[in-house]
């Protein structure tokens, strides 16, 4: 949890995760080559590998992009999110191998440097149908490289979680570019309906599941689909009513939007505490976490914070903002003004007015 930047903090889950991931990739490539040669032993092997690497990366990208929204819809998918960065790096390596082979195969042995040839051989940048689809793949690869290169927690901490997260949101730009790369390249050449259908279904799935998740999140926040978000009613003492004690299961939280920010209000051992919903690690949703061993535990990677202070238990040092809380009967009121990260707050005791 950030006490030292060890290269990789391995554990059994990660080993199992990586073994399944890499075995699947190896078998995919092996089967792809075997089936291709079965249909025509005269196909050039380089061409087969270019397609195998490219399709493997594209399929894996769909899996990666599905995990986030699925985990928001059901915590059952959280184990897939746990080590998703390794999946991302694996996908980048597959994309890199695809690009390397394509660059060498199509652009080497000519009268220009291959990388120059990539961008100047086809220059119909203003033409949709004739557009040089290779450039779209090239730009996407740069984005994927930046993400893979900064995937380690060292970069997460030094860039700060919001910057790191914003950088990794670039995956959506990369996905858009790669859909264009595939549609204007492989699909324009190979118009088999099944291939077109597969890419279309993949695109609709990714967009659809993100929209559904976004709508559900907005619904939970009580935010309207259009127009400015509703402002919670702040009382004279600067507190906002966020619901009843009965709304919250033991050792769990209710997430409420207070002063434009999501706050996680936890119930545990007859007490109520409120902290920022945003984990310091990857900005995970702490309000979807649980109190484990007396600590609020993030559902994404198990980062922990003491509910009374928002500080990670020693020797860890992460801090998040806390909120003052009070009870009126069984109704919970949370201060609209966050305290500085790590500020101790006396929890509200249930049944004590």
């Amino acid at each position: 949890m950030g006490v030292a930047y060890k290269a990789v903090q391995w554990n059994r889950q990660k080993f199992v995760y990586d073994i399944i991931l890499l075995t699947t990739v190896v078998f995919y490539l092996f089967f792809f080559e075997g089936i291709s040669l079965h249909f025509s032993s005269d196909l050039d092997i380089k061409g087969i590998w270019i397609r195998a690497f490219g399709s493997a990366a594209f399929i894996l990208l769909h899996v990666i992009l599905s995990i986030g929204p699925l985990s928001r819809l059901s915590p059952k998918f959280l184990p897939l999110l746990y080590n998703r960065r390794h999946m991302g790096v694996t996908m980048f390596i597959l994309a890199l191998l695809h690009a390397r082979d394509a660059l060498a195969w199509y652009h080497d042995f000519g009268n220009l440097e291959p990388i120059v040839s990539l961008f100047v051989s086809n220059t119909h940048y203003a033409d949709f149908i004739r557009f040089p689809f290779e450039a779209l793949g090239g730009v996407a690869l740069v984005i994927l490289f930046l993400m893979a290169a900064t995937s380690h927690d060292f970069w997460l901490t030094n860039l700060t979680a919001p910057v790191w997260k914003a950088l990794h949101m670039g995956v959506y730009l990369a996905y858009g570019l790669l859909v264009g790369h595939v549609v204007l390249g492989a699909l324009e050449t190979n118009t088999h309906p099944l291939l077109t259908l597969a890419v279309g279904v993949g695109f609709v799935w990714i967009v659809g599941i993100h929209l559904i998740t976004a709508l559900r999140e907005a619904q939970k926040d009580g935010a309207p689909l259009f127009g400015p978000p509703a402002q919670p009613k702040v009382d004279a003492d600067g507190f906002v009513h966020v619901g009843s004690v009965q709304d919250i299961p033991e050792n769990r939280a209710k997430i409420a939007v207070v002063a434009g920010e999501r706050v996680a209000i936890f119930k545990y051992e007859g007490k109520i505490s409120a902290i920022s919903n945003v984990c310091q690690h990857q900005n995970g949703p702490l309000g979807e976490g649980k109190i484990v061993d007396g600590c609020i535990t993030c559902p994404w990677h198990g980062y922990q914070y003491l509910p009374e202070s928002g500080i990670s238990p020693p020797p860890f040092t992460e801090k998040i903002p806390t909120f003052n809380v009070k009870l009126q009967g069984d109704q919970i009121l949370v201060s609209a003004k966050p305290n500085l990260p790590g500020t101790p707050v006396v929890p509200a005791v249930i049944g004590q007015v």
Partner: protein
Amino acid sequence: MSRLDSHDEFFIGYLGVPPQLKRFLLGLIPVLVLGALAFAFILPPLHFDHFNLGKRTKVPEFEGLLVGEPSPHLLVPRTGDVGTVSDFSLYLLSGTGKTSPKPKVLEHVDKWVKLKGTPFHRNHLTVIATKSAEPIDRPTSGPTQPAEGSSLGEFSLKGEIVDGKCYPGVMKPGRTKTHRSCAIRCIAGGVPPVFVVHNSVGDKLYFLLSDLDGKAVNDKVLDRVADPVQITGEVVQYADAFVLKADPATYQLL
């Protein structure tokens, strides 16, 4: 918020997977893995142009007449009774990369040569990736002088310009947009451009391209490579090949 179950299981990566969640994953992960692997079986047969792909054959040496225009090619005399077909087979020539044959080869243009290289062929279109050529004496038997080209008239043909090296077999299938940049590099480097036309019954016809003076058009067709184009010009039969003579400026993008 949805919960796993009434026991409120909670996954923490470094602690292990709770039992009910483990059961869910034991169902989900195999489906996910098999789903991904299914694409390895579905995608390869969807690849276009699995048939009539080019082939590399091991014929190390050819003897014939080296001709320079419109693109370097070798005319190899046919032996035996050839009936009504041409006395010569025409083989396109390229270098070993995306290039024309080396200057040391081209200095023997209009001479009889023994030529070494790797032949690739697709249907009746053959290109030799030329390694070397040395002059030889004109043969004393068999056909030694190819006939002049004979005009078959003016035609308007729809097809695709490919490079005469990848398409015959170096790369497979070596055509359409995914191959455009490679074909441009090949043709810019001196590989003969070839116009591929499908006739009404689906047969492939190949035309060498030349300008109105019978000269090479390589640098003038780069902008039209791998696109559907219509070319109108005079078709001249030369040995067992067709040459389509037209001004590249008149090529029409379809």
